[in-house]
């Protein structure tokens, strides 16, 4: 479905965020991307839909190499890639419905979107998705009137509104409390299973990743250092990804009230 070939990114400042990342994502597969802050997780996700321009390498979505596309062709392909953001990134002063409908922007003409005259099919689908994420009665509220968990549900509905072939998810739970985090992750995995949708989920929280992901990719300093099943995340592997730290408190406790502390102190100091 998605194939990354030797993807690299060096910023103008000279910082290398990604070096030679290659990855193969199957249909319906949920991939958790873990690694310390500054390892290049965000950059990797943004290089896929070229919100960040990769310096070299190939990004094959189906049989299209996204890196080689012109701006307008790229916009056309971006419709196939839904994206969900860390701090929801809803347009806060628009209503929930407008935020969901904005997922159709790549499909409709400027005037249609300006006058908010979406096709009946799109509106029906937007209502359906809002119902699916449990926010039907909030459709006409302004986005900034919702709670964090509700906003992230709107973010998910917006991404699904695109009819995507792939989901890119950037730290979906970083601004949420532990319970809401689990609810959001569960919703995400359910939705992906329903639609056989592959997703790359950038995630800080290792236990959460182990609980919900089918495959884990560990990134360190822009390189893939681990790629395998969640139960392959041994202490040695975690140390390789994050640097030395005591990993014992890591558990799969469902009622965990505090987010388990997986702060990669050493790595952060080194970074």
């Amino acid at each position, binding site marked *: 479905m998605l194939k990354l070939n030797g993807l690299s990114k060096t910023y103008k400042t000279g910082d290398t965020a990604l070096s030679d990342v290659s990855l193969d994502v199957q249909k319906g597969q949920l991939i958790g991307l873990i690694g310390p802050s500054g390892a290049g997780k965000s950059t990797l996700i943004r290089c896929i839909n070229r919100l960040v321009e990769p310096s070299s390498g190939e990004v094959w979505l189906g049989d299209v190499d996204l890196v080689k596309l012109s701006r307008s062709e790229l916009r056309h392909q971006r419709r196939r890639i839904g994206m969900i953001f860390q701090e929801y990134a809803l347009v806060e002063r628009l*209503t929930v*419905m*407008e935020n969901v*409908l904005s997922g159709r922007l790549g499909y409709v003409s400027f005037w249609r979107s300006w006058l*908010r005259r*979406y096709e*009946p*099919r799109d*509106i*029906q*689908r*937007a*209502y*359906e998705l809002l*119902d699916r994420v449990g926010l039907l009665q909030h*459709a*006409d509220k*302004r986005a900034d009137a919702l709670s964090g968990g509700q906003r992230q549900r709107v973010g998910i509905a917006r991404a699904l509104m695109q009819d995507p072939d792939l989901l890119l998810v950037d730290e979906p739970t970083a601004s949420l409390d532990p319970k809401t985090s689990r609810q959001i992750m569960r919703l995400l995995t359910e939705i992906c299973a329903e639609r056989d949708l592959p997703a790359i989920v950038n995630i800080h929280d290792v236990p959460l990743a182990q609980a919900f992901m089918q495959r884990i990719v560990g990134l360190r300093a822009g390189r893939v250092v681990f790629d395998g099943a969640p139960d392959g995340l041994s202490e040695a592997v975690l140390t390789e990804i994050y640097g030395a730290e005591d990993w014992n408190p890591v558990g799969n406790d469902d009622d965990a009230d505090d987010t388990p502390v997986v702060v990669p102190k050493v790595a952060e100091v080194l970074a």
Partner: protein
Amino acid sequence: MSSYPTTWRRPPQIIPDRRLRIAVQIAALVYLVLAVGSVEVNWMRVSEGLERGQRFVMGFLQPDFTSRWGDISQGLIESLTMTLTSTVVGVLISIPIGIGASRNIVPRPVYLFCRAVIAISRSLQELIVAIFLVAMFGFGPFAGFLTLSFATIGFIGKLLADEIEEVDETQVEAIRSTGASWFQMLNYAVQPQIMPRLIGLSLYRLDINFRESAVIGIVGAGGIGATLNTAIDRYEYDSAGAILLIIIAIVMVAEYSSSYLRKFLQ
């Protein structure tokens, strides 16, 4: 499954009531029609003027600095000296007024008096003040100096007072609890908190005073405005263009250097 609605309209955000909304829209439309209708334009005069406008634009593009340079430099010197002296005097007077107009550190009668002074200064247009002062003090830069000082008092006084009213109360309390007098409290608790802002405001006002000095000259209060007025009266658009360019250049330099100075002082 497909029982969801197929239409959606954006709910109105500001005025939810439909009838009120329509009433407001109609009222706005009627006002606009009336207002535009009240503008009587003498198109003959305008079309004649276009040729003059063209000459002005040409004058702006090819300004003539030399033929009136004597008048221009005289006006500039007047404007600049007026600007500096009035800002210094205005700021010096506005400091006690601003302190007096801060609810949190002075008794109520003083507060009311100082706020009244500020309100009078702010509500009178510089130009109107200038007309009166020119009538009293005669033509020339002195009336302009007084006008700008007076306007500065209201401007700095108000913003300074607002700033003092927002100082961190805990610092004031801490200094007070040491047994400090009112002046010591001012010096140790308030002054450090407002000094950067006061300097910034003074520089900003310097900039405004220069711009205003170009205006009040029109009613006889001296400065570059008088020169400009004369140039336009004589239809010497190339000299007028030169004066305007000089004003723009000085304002740009002032803005740039004041932001630099503020950074330097912090």
